[in-house]
């Protein structure tokens, strides 16, 4: 207590800088989410089409004025836009995200059973993509400028140009329609929700699509970072010591490339989520991406707003986490404050 009284509340922050950083990150997260929610809300309210019509359909023409007012009140459409926003935001804090205009039930109830499906697909794809990317990158760097490296670079660039939805269509055409190896749609067969094998079977094709459309971009970046690293003096020293190439790459270079990989993993989250949207839509996989497409077609803004906010929160949170992980694995970052990624 004595330190507290001597230095006041600022003393804690001075003694434990980690607390300052965590508080700062939480503050950044809250502020960005606030701004994001305002932007999303205003955009959704400016949109053409009356939400009332979207919710009640033709029934609106036969309603009396009192009924209309009640209906507006129920959907939170009365009052100025600022008031509407405050009410909507207050509702969010209380866990109420508004009604889905299409399904007439709370938007959160529509989405919550789907989040799990998307997370399973997204997280699996994410981990597999980066595992493959690092291995491919190391091998390319190991055999830099040999036929092996060049062949992989050519193949990788070629896969990068294939639109992912089209790849999905072709895979369905080949493997589920003509060969019948994998199911073409859904996340599980009816009543097999907890059957892991059944889920895996449904996930193979979407996973291939997501891996093929993402892996090369990251593998190439990591490969280039490794080849840059190979030109540094410490590699020469390690080689002079008699270490094998594999040891140098996996033990010495990898440690220096790790911050880049973590940064890439943070930046890649919106991309991978984009990938899930497309993969889910092609394979009719019940997830939030597929739901977003359906909601957009129906002009279900309440649902869309929620989906955008959820994905935004996931992305911002993960980038903060990545930044903090980077500080742990690379102490140099603490002072510079910048990321190694942006040059």
């Amino acid at each position: 207590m004595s330190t507290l009284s001597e230095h006041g509340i600022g003393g804690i922050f001075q003694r434990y800088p980690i607390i300052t950083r965590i508080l700062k990150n939480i503050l950044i997260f809250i502020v960005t989410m606030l701004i994001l929610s305002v932007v999303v809300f205003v955009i959704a309210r400016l949109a053409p089409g009356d939400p009332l019509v979207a919710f009640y359909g033709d029934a609106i023409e036969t309603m009396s004025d009192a009924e209309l007012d009640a209906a507006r009140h129920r959907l939170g459409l009365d009052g100025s836009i600022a008031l509407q926003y405050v009410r909507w935001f207050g509702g969010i804090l209380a866990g109420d995200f508004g009604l889905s205009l299409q399904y007439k039930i709370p938007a959160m109830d529509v989405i919550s059973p789907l989040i799990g499906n998307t997370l399973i697909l997204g997280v699996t794809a994410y981990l597999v993509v980066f595992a493959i990317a690092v291995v491919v990158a190391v091998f390319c760097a190991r055999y830099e400028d040999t036929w092996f490296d060049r062949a992989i670079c050519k193949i990788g660039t070629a896969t990068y140009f294939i639109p992912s939805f089209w790849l999905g269509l072709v895979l369905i055409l080949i493997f589920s329609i003509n060969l019948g190896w994998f199911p073409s749609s859904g996340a599980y067969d009816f009543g097999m929700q907890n059957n892991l094998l059944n889920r895996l079977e449904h996930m193979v094709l979407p996973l291939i699509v997501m891996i093929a459309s993402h892996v090369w971009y990251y593998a190439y970046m990591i490969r280039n970072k490794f080849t840059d690293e190979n030109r540094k003096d410490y590699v020469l020293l390690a080689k002079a010591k008699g270490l094998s190439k594999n040891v140098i790459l996996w033990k010495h270079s990898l440690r220096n490339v790790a911050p880049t990989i973590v940064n890439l993993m943070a930046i890649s989250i919106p991309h991978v989520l984009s990938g899930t949207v497309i993969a889910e839509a092609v394979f009719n996989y019940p997830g939030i991406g597929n739901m977003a497409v359906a909601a957009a077609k129906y002009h279900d803004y309440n649902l869309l707003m929620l989906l955008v906010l959820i994905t935004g929160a996931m992305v911002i949170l993960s980038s903060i986490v990545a930044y903090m992980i980077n500080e742990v694995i690379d102490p140099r970052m603490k002072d510079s404050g910048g990321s190694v990624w942006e040059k």
Partner: protein
Amino acid sequence: MGEVTDSMFEIVGSEYREYVPGNVKRSRFAVLRKLPWVSIVVLSVIVLGCIFAPLFCTHDPSMFYLDHLNEASSEEFLFGTDSLGRDIFSVIWFGGRTSLAIGVLGTVMITVIGIAIGCVNGIVGTRADTLMQRAIELFHSIPTILLCILLMALVGTQNVLTLSIVIAITGWFALARIVRSEVRQIRANEYVLAAKAMGSSFRHLVFAHLLPNIIPAIMFVVISSVSSCITMESTLSFLGLGLPLEIMSWGSMLSLANRALLMNTWWVIVIPGLFIIVTLTCITTLANLFRKESNKKSSRL
């Protein structure tokens, strides 16, 4: 010292430009031979084919040949017909016009927005710059495709112009970032200071010094965005949020894919996709011409 050799200009680090010795002049023939001729020829064939489509297309692309639904390729219908009975060969060339138009239109908009915002970002003071960077990061935190879906739902009408605008609104971040860093580098140069000291106006600074210097740096991104616009168009149209079926494009052709899957008619899916991929590959090969080559030391591994 004697003569100047390349090895004297090997600088360590990744952020330097290639040293091109002034006295070595590459012959015109050598320059020409280095161009990616295959890509240029293929891309020209596609572009010219789309422009002059009415001259060689034997069928009306908007005609529904109802007694020729889902036919495989034959002499009459070179690429077969789709589930509406349209001749795919004609639809490809006429639809290519729309796809390429969106690619070019979207790129023009991306370039204008990207340069404008990047320049402002590079010129304003540190605090405003940080604020704008944060704003860009915020936008970036929403997956592009989700942002496009949201905006397409908001726009309501679906045509070439609105689709290009939506694609441009979601696609300028990368370009703005490059322009910003280039501008910051350039404005620290002495010649800008000299020009300012001589009393040149802001407009003169921008058009005489800034723009000519950033153009080489952004060429790669600008040309690549043609391909990203085409991809985005086809993805959105496939999802049913881009162009409707009446407006022919490579993307809207693929929106028939689900029916094609049911009928197992592969040509409806494969042919537009191949056209998209070939076009994208050619465009990117061209874009690679503008990439700065970093001079490489030999590996120490």
